[in-house]
C-alpha cells in the first residue's frame, strides 16, 4: 500500500451532453445519410457506446462537395479577407469558452488522459485558429506573391490520435486562405468534429464553408477521389497515404499534402541532462499512449550512459499512472481501438520472438476497454521489426551508439523521417545533428512540442507538404 495514494479525481462528465445520434454536417445543417446508414462510436476505456453517427456514402460526399463549391464561389472566396479572419477569431474564442467540454468529450471518445486533452490538445486547437485568423488578411506578406489565391474545395481526412487538433491543423489554414472544406474525422473519434460543426453554427459561419462527413475508409476514399475536390489533405497511416497518392495522381489538378507515419529516433548523448532527458523519453513515447506519428519510438542512447539512462527510465516508468482517462491524475489512458490494440500486441510479440528483451513496470490494467502497459524493449537491433515498423502505441525500442556519426546513421536508417530528438548540453552538437538528421522536425532537449507558428511535416515515407507556420499556408494557396 503506497503511503501517498492519490484518491480518484475524475473530471465531471456533466459538462458534456452527448446526443443519441448525429447526422452529417452539410451546408450548415445536420442531415441523415442518404442511405440511412450509421455506425456506433464507443469509449475505448469502457467499451460503452457513446452515440450513433451517420455514415456518409458517395451521394452524401457529392452533396457536401457541391455545398462546399457553392459556398466557395458565392460567399467565402468573395468575402473580404479581414471578414474571414473575424470568423476564425470567433471560432477560436468559442473553442476557448467550450474548452472544458471539448476536452472531456475528446477523452471520452479517444481514451486519452484528460490532463493531455485539457493541457495540450485544447490550448493548441484554439492557438491554431487564433494564429491562422491573423494570417487571413495578411496573405500578401506570406511570401507567395502580391495576392495569392485559394485553391477551392479542400477534402480533408484526419486520424483518431488528436481528433480535434488535427481538425484545427486542417480547417484553420484552409479557411484562412479562402478555401472551403469537407472534412472526414476518423470513424473511432467523430464526436469532437461534430461538436465543432455546432461551433460553426454558433459562430454563424456561412453554410457550406465547413462540412463534416463521418464514416470509415470508404467515405474517405469517395471524398479524396471526388472530382470536385481541388485539394486533398490527409494525416494518417503511410499505407493509406500511398493509396491516396496513387488515386490523386490520376487527377493532376489536385494538390495533395500527406502527413504519414514515423519511427523517430530520440538520441541521448552522454553529456545530456539525464533527468530531463528521461522526462523527454517518457513524453516522447508515452504521451497520448504513443499514438503520435512523431513519437520518439526509437531511443538511441550513447553506450557510456546506457545503464544510467535505462535505470532512471525504468524508475520513472514505475511512477506512470495508467487508468481512467477522465481522472485528472492519469498519465496513460486507453488504446483507441481493439484493432490498434491487436496491432500493438502483434508487433510486441514479434519483438520478443526476434530476441529483444521486453520490460513493463508493475501496472494493473482495467478489465474492460483496450489497454496496453508502457513497454520498453532493450537489446533491439536495427533489423528488428520493432525498430523499423511504426507501432503507434506505448512501446519503446532502445538501441545504443558510440559516436555521433553512428547516431546519425542509425537515426536516418528508416523509411520514415517525421521527427527526431537530440539530448546534449553542447549547442554545437545540436546544430551538427540537426543538419544531418533527415526529419521534418528536430527537437533539441525537448520532445513533442508543437506550436501553430512552427511548420510540421515529413521526409521520405512520412509524407510531403508542411502544416503550420508561413510554410503551411502554401498547401492551401494556388502558388
Amino acid at each position, binding site marked *: 500500500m503506497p*503511503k501517498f495514494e*492519490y484518491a480518484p*479525481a475524475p473530471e465531471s462528465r456533466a459538462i458534456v451532453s452527448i446526443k443519441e445520434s448525429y447526422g452529417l454536417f452539410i451546408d450548415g445543417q445536420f442531415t441523415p445519410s442518404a442511405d440511412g446508414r450509421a455506425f456506433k462510436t464507443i469509449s475505448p476505456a469502457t467499451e460503452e457506446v457513446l452515440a450513433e453517427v451517420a455514415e456518409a456514402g458517395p451521394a452524401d460526399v457529392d452533396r457536401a462537395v457541391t455545398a462546399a463549391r457553392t459556398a466557395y464561389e458565392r460567399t467565402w472566396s468573395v468575402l473580404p479577407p479581414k471578414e474571414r479572419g473575424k470568423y476564425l477569431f470567433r471560432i477560436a474564442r468559442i473553442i476557448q469558452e467550450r474548452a472544458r467540454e471539448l476536452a472531456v468529450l475528446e477523452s471520452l471518445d479517444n481514451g486519452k488522459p484528460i490532463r493531455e486533452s485539457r493541457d495540450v490538445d485544447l490550448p493548441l486547437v484554439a492557438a491554431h485558429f487564433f494564429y491562422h485568423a491573423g494570417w487571413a488578411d495578411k496573405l500578401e506578406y506570406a511570401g507567395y506573391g502580391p495576392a495569392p489565391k485559394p485553391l477551392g474545395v479542400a477534402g480533408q481526412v484526419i486520424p483518431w490520435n488528436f481528433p480535434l487538433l488535427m481538425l484545427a491543423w486542417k480547417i484553420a489554414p484552409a479557411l484562412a486562405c479562402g478555401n472551403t472544406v469537407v472534412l472526414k474525422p476518423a470513424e473511432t473519434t467523430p464526436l469532437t468534429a461534430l461538436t465543432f460543426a455546432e461551433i460553426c453554427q454558433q459562430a454563424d459561419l456561412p453554410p457550406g464553408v465547413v462540412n463534416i462527413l463521418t464514416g470509415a475508409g470508404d467515405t474517405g476514399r469517395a471524398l479524396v477521389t471526388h472530382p470536385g475536390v481541388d485539394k486533398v489533405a490527409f494525416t494518417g497511416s503511410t499505407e493509406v497515404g500511398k493509396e491516396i497518392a496513387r488515386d490523386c495522381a490520376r487527377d493532376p489538378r489536385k494538390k495533395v499534402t500527406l502527413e504519414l507515419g514515423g519511427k523517430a529516433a530520440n538520441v541521448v548523448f552522454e553529456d545530456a541532462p539525464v533527468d530531463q532527458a528521461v522526462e523527454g523519453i517518457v513524453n516522447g513515447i508515452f504521451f497520448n499512449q504513443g499514438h503520435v506519428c512523431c513519437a520518439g519510438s526509437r531511443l538511441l542512447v550513447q553506450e557510456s550512459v546506457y545503464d544510467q539512462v535505462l535505470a532512471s527510465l525504468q524508475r520513472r516508468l514505475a511512477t506512470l499512472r495508467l487508468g481512467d482517462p477522465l481522472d485528472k491524475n492519469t498519465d496513460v489512458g486507453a488504446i483507441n481501438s481493439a484493432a490498434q490494440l491487436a496491432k500493438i500486441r502483434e508487433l510486441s510479440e514479434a519483438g520478443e520472438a526476434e530476441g529483444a528483451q521486453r520490460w513493463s513496470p508493475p501496472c494493473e490494467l482495467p478489465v474492460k476497454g483496450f489497454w496496453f502497459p508502457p513497454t520498453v524493449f532493450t537489446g533491439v537491433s536495427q533489423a528488428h521489426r520493432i525498430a523499423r515498423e511504426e507501432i503507434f502505441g506505448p512501446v519503446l525500442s532502445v538501441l545504443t551508439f558510440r559516436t555521433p556519426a553512428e547516431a546519425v546513421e542509425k537515426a536516418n536508417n528508416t523509411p520514415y523521417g517525421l521527427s527526431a530528438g537530440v539530448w546534449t*548540453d553542447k549547442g554545437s552538437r545540436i546544430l551538427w545533428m540537426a543538419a544531418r538528421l533527415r526529419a521534418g522536425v528536430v527537437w533539441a532537449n*525537448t520532445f513533442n512540442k508543437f506550436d501553430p507558428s512552427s511548420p510540421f511535416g515529413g521526409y521520405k515515407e512520412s509524407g510531403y507538404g508542411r502544416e503550420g507556420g508561413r510554410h503551411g499556408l502554401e498547401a492551401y494557396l494556388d502558388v
Partner: protein
Amino acid sequence: MSAPADTRTIAGSSLREFLHGLPGVDQVGAEARAAMLASRSVKTTAKQWALDTAISMIDLTTLEGQDTPGKVRAMCAKAKRPDPADPTAPRVAAVCVYPDLAHLAAAEVKGTGIHVASVATAFPSGRTSLEVKLADASYAIDAGADEVDMVIDRGAFLAGDYQLVYDEIAAVREVVEGSAHLKVILETGELVTLDNVRRASWLAMLAGADFIKTSTGKVTPAATLPVTLVMLEAVRDFRDTHGRQVGVKPAGGIRTAKDAIRYLVLVNETAGEDWLDPRWFRFGASSLLNDLLMQRTKLATGRYSGPDYFTLD
C-alpha cells in the same frame, strides 16, 4: 555518478572535477516537470493524509530581529498543540529560532518529541570567520538545539572555491556531531542556476549534511518547486551511490496548503515515498501552519472558519 570512495579527503581539484562532472540540469525541462506535477489533483482521503503529513513536517519558524521570549513561548505552545479546538491535529516537527532563544524553545518543548532547530554560522549571510561560525554552532547546541541549520559561504561557492565550502561544512559537522542534526542551507536564490543547485547539493551531502535546505527565507526567490525537484533528485541519486539517505527542507515562501501538497507530490514522484516522513522532509514555514489547519477543519466540517479562529502563533 560515482564519487571517490573517501569523500572526506578529496583534494580541491578532484572535488571540482566531480561536481562539474555531474549531469547538467536543463532548466526548461525541470520547470516543465515541476509544473506538470503541480497539476496533480489531491482530493478527499489523499488530501486528508497530505494535510496531516504536511503539518507534521513543519519546522515552525521565527527568525526576526524583533523576536521576543514571549513570541518564542507562544510559538512553542502552538507547535505542541497547533489547533486548540482539535486535539487530533498532529504536532509539528520542530521549532526553529535564533541561537540566543534556543534555550527558551528547548525548555518549552522538552519531553514532547518536538525538535529544537537553531540557525547558526552567522545566519543568514554567513559572512564571518570560521571561528565565529563554529562558536555560533556550539552556542546553539549548548543552548539545547538538536538541529543546526547552517548557511554555506555562497561567495566562495560562486567563486568556484568548493573546497572552502566543503571544509566549512565538515568543520561544523564535527562541532555538532553526536548532539545535533546538520541542515545545510544552500540559499538557492543566490546560486541562481539549477546546475549550481545540483552541485551545491552534492557538495553539502559529501561534506556530511543530514539535510539540505533551500533557503534562509531572507532572499528572494526562496524555495521553488524546480529547485526542490533538483535537490530531491540529488538526494535520491546520492542514496543510490553512497548508501546514505539525506533529507530535504524547502524553506521560505511556502504559505498555502495547496503549495505544501504540491511539494509532497514532488517528493512522492521524485525521491519516492521513503522521503515522505518528517525525518526526511521538512517545511521551513510559519504562516503555512494556519492555512493547513484551516483546510483541515474545512475537510472535516465542510465549512471554512475565518482566520480569527486560528491562533496567531
